[in-house]
């Protein structure tokens, strides 16, 4: 802005007589400039996150089907209904099943993939590129292809399993295996992402530390368990937090692998077989646009969305409390790095 530059000479002129006033005006000018820089982000946070979050809570105490011009206040009705709605425990259980198979295998397999590929060489670069490839593709495209892979008649997975002489399960068509199949696909698609973060963490493990452990008589497993794991623990923690947050929001892969399409309303038909893959968000989506039931519509969907937000908050908070004990922090290195860039002077 122009005022920043025009005030510059004043700043040097005022250098000797009144140092205190100078500092005040300088810092307030700096604050004003900073405010201009962060204004879009701050406005965005207020208008598109904080405001709607509060409004959403307000809506959760109303009934609204969008046909009526305005929401009607219904007090705690939605929340009471939510506590008694037997579809809620069902979708939560589906999410838990997804986490048990998907999130845990993601954390383990991406570490394994990183261990297999963290020493750089030309071939390893190729392996990494291949493992990472599914991550850049859309979950809809990937889901559609895997839907064919799992096809019970001639899908490659089914055929492959039967070649081994094992009767193949019905994958996406059997309520017992559908969610696990989706979880496997999500793990397959995201392993490259986890691997990438683990690789940069593994490259930060100081070689002298490993050598010292070897001299002390530690075997390979002991070195991994007591040197490598503590040093990469911030990454393990970061990936557990983000992948769990993601698991609670599962939607696209379920639509791609279980939804049909009638006039483009894919999500409304997804979640099968027998609702065994219906997730929290899928249920919220359906309630948002479903006005057949007495308690449904935007108000009830807002209550479900708030329940989701609270669940994520609680689970993340628990992780921070529990993780705080296990995560190794580089106490002396971190503050210095932060201090370096502070302030423009």
């Amino acid at each position, binding site marked *: 802005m122009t005022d920043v530059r025009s005030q510059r000479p004043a700043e040097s002129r005022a250098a000797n007589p009144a140092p205190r006033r100078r500092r005040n005006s300088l810092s307030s000018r700096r604050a004003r400039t900073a405010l201009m820089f962060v204004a*879009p982000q701050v406005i965005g946070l207020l208008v598109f996150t904080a405001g709607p979050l509060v409004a959403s809570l307000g809506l959760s105490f109303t009934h609204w089907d969008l046909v009526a011009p305005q929401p009607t206040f219904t007090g705690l009705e939605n929340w009471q209904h939510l506590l008694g709605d037997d579809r809620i425990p069902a979708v939560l259980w589906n999410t838990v099943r997804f986490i048990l198979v998907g999130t845990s295998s993601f954390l383990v397999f991406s570490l394994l993939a990183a261990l297999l590929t963290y020493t750089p060489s030309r071939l390893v670069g190729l392996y990494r590129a291949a493992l990472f490839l599914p991550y850049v593709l859309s979950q809809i495209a990937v889901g559609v292809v895997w839907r064919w892979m799992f096809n019970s008649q001639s899908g490659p997975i089914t055929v492959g399993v039967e070649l081994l002489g094992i009767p193949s399960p019905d994958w996406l068509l059997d309520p017992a295996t559908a969610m696990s199949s989706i979880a496997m696909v999500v793990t397959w698609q995201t392993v490259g992402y986890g691997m990438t973060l683990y690789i940069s963490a593994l490259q930060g493990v100081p070689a002298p530390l490993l050598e010292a452990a070897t001299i002390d008589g530690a075997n390979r497993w002991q070195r991994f368990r007591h040197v490598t794991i503590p040093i990469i623990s911030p990454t393990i923690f970061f990936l557990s937090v983000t992948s769990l947050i993601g698991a609670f929001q599962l939607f696209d892969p379920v639509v791609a692998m279980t939804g049909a399409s009638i006039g483009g309303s894919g999500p409304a038909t997804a979640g099968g077989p027998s609702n065994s893959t219906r997730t929290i968000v899928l249920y919220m989506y359906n309630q948002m646009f479903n006005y057949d039931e007495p308690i449904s519509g935007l108000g009830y969907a807002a209550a479900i969305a708030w329940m989701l937000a609270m669940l994520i908050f609680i689970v993340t908070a628990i992780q921070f409390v529990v993780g705080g004990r296990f995560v190794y922090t580089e106490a002396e290195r971190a503050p210095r790095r932060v201090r370096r860039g502070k302030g423009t002077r």
Partner: protein
Amino acid sequence: MKTVRARTALYHGAMIVLTFAFVFPALLAVSMSLRTDANMFAADQLIPHPITFEHYARLFEALPDLWRYFLNTLVIAVLGTAGTLLSSSMAGFALARIRFPGRGALLIAMLLTLMVPVHATLIPQYVIFRELGWLNTPLPIVVPLLFGTPFATFFFRQYFIALPLELEDAAAIDGAGPWRTFFRIFVPLSGSAYLAIGLLTFVSLWNSYFLNTIYLARQESWVLTQALQSLIGRYQTDYGAIMAGVTLVSLPILIAYLIFQRRIVHGISMTGLAN
């Protein structure tokens, strides 16, 4: 010596199998899109012979507006990426380089925002955008991005914090204020950060589905992922057309990945540092 070589061979053998498992579905999709109907389910057709493009023709018959969906997707991805880059890099610069009251609070607020699922803010936004007549236009998706995203802001903050302090000193000697310092010195120096976060944002917008399916219900406003999803029910058995759709939708991203693979992967590995 012999055991070392055997182990190396075993390692590369295993890795090639693994690599194949990760590339196979993409290969299969391209392959099936080029097979004749008679060969669709044949096991020896991974490299299709003979090759046919009839499924692509059928895809355009089924979705005559495919170019329109392509354009819709492109508009959202380009505008959303540009807005995110500008606003988030500005905020990231101030958070990294200017000391101002409320900076710590803003950082904490942004951290907390990362935990808030989009769903919890979706319904009031939907109501307002509907009121404004923005449904079935790119606006509900693009406009919030013009204000930047906390994720990208964090990324830029981490990047700018690591640049040497002398940059501002040199700029100050030249009499440049923060705006000129930012746009003339920091932005040109940070091409790799802009490229990395730009690619990540673009890819995620290109691939996104959930918000689009909420805001873009009318068919002419669809994006590619919606069009692709719509193929499933109608052409349940027409795998050729479905795979042609998968191939076309993924092709731009695949090409970008082949060109910028290092950048994308590097950008991803930098996002881990944000914690």
